[in-house]
């Protein structure tokens, strides 16, 4: 019942927000729905082993972590969107809440699905739900971005469907093996046909990898994140990629007990390292701050794949990094959105002296910069540390060394751009420094909350969270420290 409600509340919200006649009603709906969803997810933490619809929906540690991340990100985004929409047209104030709610419903479905075809249906729905928001500005550039996004994601997601069918083919028709149910697949992993299983995993990594934006399947990402409104970018980089990671993790969860870990893991590590490499290459010398964030997202999904592929402590790091990456991306996109709004461009050379012009956002950007580059005391430090030490512990010193090197390069690239934006005196482009002004509270409240969460995650993990992380890592063949 509770599980169904978590999916249906936002779905209903989408319908109501579309039908509601006034902007104020829609805004109230958006915040109300987000709060209700968060409360329901909080309630889910207090229960154990809830299932619905003959096991098609069920809650486990990994799904719950992703669901909680999406729910928290969503409420922050919703609050930001309400402020953002105050000055916008009526059309926008109808499209935004509807699409955002549709995204939340689909993402909840992905997190709770224990039936892999149902998970696919949810994944496709998340893809489509944000498309109208990418085309928000209705100009040529956003049109190009949404077309690339639709075509590449649709092909990716179609290949993921093929992976699901291949997995069904690998399953023998015997009692106790209900088709495509995750729990049966894991329990009867030994009886799965390894040849079909390998094919399924290859298509899963290409399909869900496209949705995550793993290099070389990332080409839609800079265009989409560069053109989409920043609040949508944050939700995609933090929430949508995590859902796609969950899809890939579900396949890994089946392959490891089937004894194909030695096949799956090197593939994941290779995709992870290549993503880091591509991200480093394009971050250094990047001129547009939103595209920089997109490549940073390529980097972090690369870390997720890497951690998943390493096993042991690395996998624990990857699960923790899902949360850290999600929150940091939400923070960075919203803050960068504020600065882009203040200076009217996303070209980094035209954003200068923000510490004086927009002090709060500038400080938050500094926090985001430290967090995204994995500096202590913020959350990503812990998860990246776990991933790298996982690599050393599993006897992959070269993987650890190249990861550290690439992370260092990426840090230099990001820091150079962002520090200039914060501290640059704008002598080369005096027009780039807008007049100082106080920022509206809706612009900074959400990012501040996210910065707080990222800081807390770096200092102290509450016990229930630690238990869930350890459990989630264990289902993926990892182990807690």
């Amino acid at each position, binding site marked *: 019942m509770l599980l169904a409600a978590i999916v249906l509340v936002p779905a209903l919200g989408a319908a109501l927000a579309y039908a509601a006649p006034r902007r104020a009603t829609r805004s109230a709906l958006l915040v109300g729905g987000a709060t209700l969803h968060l409360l329901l997810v909080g309630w889910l933490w207090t229960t154990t082993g809830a299932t619905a619809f003959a096991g098609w929906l069920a809650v486990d540690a990994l799904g719950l972590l992703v669901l909680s991340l999406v729910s928290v990100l969503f409420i922050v985004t919703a609050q930001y969107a309400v402020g953002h929409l105050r000055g916008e047209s009526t059309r926008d104030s109808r499209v935004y809440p509807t699409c955002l709610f549709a995204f939340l419903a689909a993402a909840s479905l992905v997190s709770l699905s224990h039936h892999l075809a149902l998970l696919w249906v949810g994944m496709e729905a998340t893809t489509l739900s944000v498309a109208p928001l990418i085309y928000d500005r209705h100009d040529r550039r956003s*049109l190009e971005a949404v077309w690339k996004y639709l075509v590449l994601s*649709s092909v990716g997601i179609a290949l993921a469907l093929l992976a699901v069918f291949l997995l*069904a083919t690998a399953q023998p028709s015997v009692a106790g093996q209900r088709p495509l149910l995750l729990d049966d697949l894991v329990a009867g992993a030994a009886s799965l046909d390894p040849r079909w299983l390998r094919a399924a995993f290859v298509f899963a990594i290409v399909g869900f990898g496209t949705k995550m934006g793993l290099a070389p399947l990332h080409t839609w990402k800079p265009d989409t994140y560069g053109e989409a409104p920043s609040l949508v970018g944050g939700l995609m980089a933090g929430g949508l990629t995590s859902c796609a990671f969950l899809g890939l993790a579900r396949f890994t969860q089946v392959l490891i007990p089937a004894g194909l870990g030695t096949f799956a893991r090197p593939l994941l590590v290779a995709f992870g390292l290549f993503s880091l490499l591509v991200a480093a290459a394009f971050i250094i010398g990047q001129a547009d701050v939103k595209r920089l964030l997109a490549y940073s997202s390529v980097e972090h999904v690369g870390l997720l794949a890497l951690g998943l592929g390493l096993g042991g402590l690395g996998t624990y790091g990857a699960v923790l990094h899902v949360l850290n990456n999600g929150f940091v991306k939400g923070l960075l996109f919203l803050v960068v959105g504020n600065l882009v709004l203040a200076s009217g461009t996303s070209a980094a050379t035209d954003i200068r002296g923000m510490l004086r012009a927009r002090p709060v956002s500038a400080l938050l950007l500094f926090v985001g910069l430290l967090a995204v580059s994995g500096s202590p005391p913020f959350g990503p430090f812990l998860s990246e540390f776990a991933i790298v030490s996982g690599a050393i512990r599993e006897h992959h010193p070269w993987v650890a060394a190249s990861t550290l090197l690439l992370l260092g390069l990426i840090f230099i690239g990001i820091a150079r751009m962002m520090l200039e934006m914060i501290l640059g005196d704008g002598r080369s482009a005096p027009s780039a420094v807008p007049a100082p002004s106080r920022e509206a509270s809706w612009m900074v409240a959400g990012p501040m909350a996210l910065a707080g969460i990222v800081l807390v995650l770096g200092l102290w993990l509450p016990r229930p969270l630690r238990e869930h992380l350890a459990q989630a890592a264990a289902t993926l063949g990892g182990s807690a420290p």
Partner: protein
Amino acid sequence: MRALAELFLLLVVLTDFAVLGTSRLSACIRAIALQGLLLGSLPLLVEGAWSVHAAVLGLGTIAVKAVLLPAFLRWAIREASVRREVEPLVGYMASLLLGALALGASFAVAHRLPQSADASLLVPVALVTLMIGLLVLITRSKAVSQVVGYLMLENGIYLFGLTQTRRVPFLLEAGVLLDVFVAVFVMGIVVFHINREFDSISAANLAELREY
């Protein structure tokens, strides 16, 4: 029944090549509609006996893939008044040759796959439809042709799914069908906007966003 199913599968391959070899968009859409019709009749033929499940799935597929989506695509090209694919990345003869190559490869691959499925032609036809769909998607520059390519890719996966049709419940097939429908619908709307913005629905015009 079995013989009829195999005949229909061969016809699916012919529609694949029809799309590959023509420059007229309306002919492409006709071919993809025919393919949808063939796909819709296959669940009954593959299963070999009447069942509500197969009948509903078949009717749903025909409604979406043979009627609704082709009508929608026809609307899109009428609004945009485009008739032909102008400059495909790969010429028509070369595309047909690549298609023939894909056909050979599909049979070779399908032959080597562990056969858990009983319908022997289903898997190779699924693979070739998938590959030709990808080929169309990559090499054609008109946005409508790319949508047709995507539909063929989906159709290939649908054919592969038919090997599992007795095991995957109906509700999910409905979900998958609905998703495909919405995806193409959203793409169609974007195609319409591309047309308004650029006076032609060539995706080749979309080349502003790149690294400097």
